[in-house]
């Protein structure tokens, strides 16, 4: 997906059909790197036009109940602070994510990054 922040208020926005909109669920998914790159290029017009800042692509993965960003950072950007469910995009959602299953908790617990030192 392609994302940026809106210049005027900093709101997180996503690319959809040649324009920006604030809803993660409605964002365009690029399966091909080339299409993603083309969108990123096209998006620069909005940067020059002083509508958005900080455009970049990020990864999502398909899950049973929809699409979720791979990285925690993008999950939080798509919802709002996880410690204030009344703030950010999540506050406007019909089913608050606290009640729905938060996407990032559906993935299995990650393995430990390194073997702990068991020699002691």
């Amino acid at each position, binding site marked *: 997906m392609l994302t940026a922040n809106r210049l005027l208020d900093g709101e997180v926005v996503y690319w959809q059909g040649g324009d920006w909109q604030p809803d993660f669920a409605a964002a365009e998914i690029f399966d091909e790197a080339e299409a993603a790159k083309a969108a990123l290029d096209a998006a620069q017009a909005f940067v020059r036009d002083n509508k958005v800042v900080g455009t970049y692509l990020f990864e999502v993965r398909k899950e049973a109940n929809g699409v979720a960003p791979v990285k925690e950072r993008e999950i939080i950007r798509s919802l709002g*602070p996880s410690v204030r469910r009344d703030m950010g995009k999540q506050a406007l959602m019909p089913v608050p994510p606290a009640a729905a299953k938060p996407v990032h908790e559906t993935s299995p617990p990650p393995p430990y990054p390194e073997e702990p030192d068991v020699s002691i």
Partner: protein
Amino acid sequence: MYRYDEFDAKMVRERAQQFRYQVERRIKGELTEDEFKPLRLKNGLYLQLHSYMLRVAVPYGTLSARQMRQLARIARDYSRGYGHFTTRTNMQYHWPKLSEVPDILELLADVEMHCIQTSGNCVRNVTADHFAGAVAGELEDPRPICEIIRQWSSFHPEFNYLPRKFKIAVSATKEDRAAVKYHDIGMEVITNEAGETGYRVFVGGGMGRTPYVALEIGKFVGKEDILAYLEAILRVYNEYGRRDNIHKARVKILAHQLGADEFRRQVEVEFAEIKRHGTLHLPPEELKRIEAYFAPPAFEDLPETAPEFEAAVKADAGFAAWTRSNLTPHKAKGYAIATISLKTIGQTPGDASAEQMDGLAQIMEDFGFAEIRVSHEQNLVFPHVRKKDLPAVYARLQALDLGAANAGLITDIICCPGLDYCDLANARSIPVAMKLQERFADLERQHELGEIKIKMSGCINACGHHHAGHIGILGVDKKGVEFYQIQLGGSGAEDASVGEIMGPGFGKDEIVDAVERVVETYVALRAPGERLLETYRRVGMTPFKNAAYQEQMYAAY
């Protein structure tokens, strides 16, 4: 409190006006983001994950009721009803709109506040002991010199483009509550053999990627010379600091590379040069003039304690617990220093709602408190409370949900905003801090554990001072998933030390258990009267590490 003179007022107004024009030009498209970004950063305005973030300076952590009310108003009207007090004793608003920031700056200027030099590679907000002017055993109030440094460093043309940001803190007691040895320059007010008051000057402390405890550079610098001495340090840094590598650009790298002796020698050369020209001499009359602003209130002649206070301690267990952890002895009889914990269980550490800020201002007005302080531990302080007023003040704090009896205890956690807000973060820190607070919520247990400082950062920039935590926690990112490293044995106090990393990180569902196992190990090993920090220093990492990784060790077999 310090009051702006006409120069201060004019300077701050002009800056707000300039920024209004700059924002207008940005919105019209006359400035690109690349051109605008350095301008907005010079006014404390960042772009973070969900929105802009505005950082307001609270010089040496001192606020009046009027200023607190204004902060509440700005939170309510421009930032969704709350703000966040930081480890630099500043206030951060997480939700302002770009187009509204000039209005916020005007509102701040109305109460003699601003966002100047809260970001960028310049001298930042100078911090001081939050008990300044109130605590017993203080040589003098450190804030007048902080104010003088503020005036000297604000818009200082030579130091507006330093290699990196620059932070100064001042303390005036043997106990260091301002973490002076973790600052670019830390100053301790001392007296020399002749009985004169001056400063011991430390240089090159810092957190971040390469943590260092500062080196002693100036053993005793006289008052009239202090600005010249600071200028000499900044000159050496400005000239030789590593501008080629952002990770090596802080003065700590330069100072530790040169070593204390060579760094001191270079400073002395510059210092002699400045003195020879006779500039930057701080006249005693000027110091006196500034000191007058910080004169303490006229203390009443009160008995040591008050019957109202004693009765409330007996009658109300909650109040009794609060007095145990949140009061500090005052230099005047019959008074106390009261710490207002912003670590109520279940709330984001350091956050305050507009209602709470207004409520605090109301308490100040009702009880005649001229000031409130912000501490680098993300708490607030009423510095001069009559003991007889304490039960009533406590009741009012309770009503605001600000009566947590945990100052200095394990749930009084320093915590940066982390990945819930911060663009630079690797992992969230607030939810972990909140879970730890829940785990250790039992007050009896907290008091029994004694002073344990947990400090937590969401990335290596260490805004949450994790290197200086008795237990430090650092959020790391492993392929987009959050992990948490534990460090033990850090201290930001007079016994400053950098914490030692325990080993690989714990997952977000394991970190709280791991910390609890560390704490239980302390309980099992401690000698009578020993704090966790001291037990760790005595026995070392091994027993704590074995305990913390226990379950992972089983999992590995």
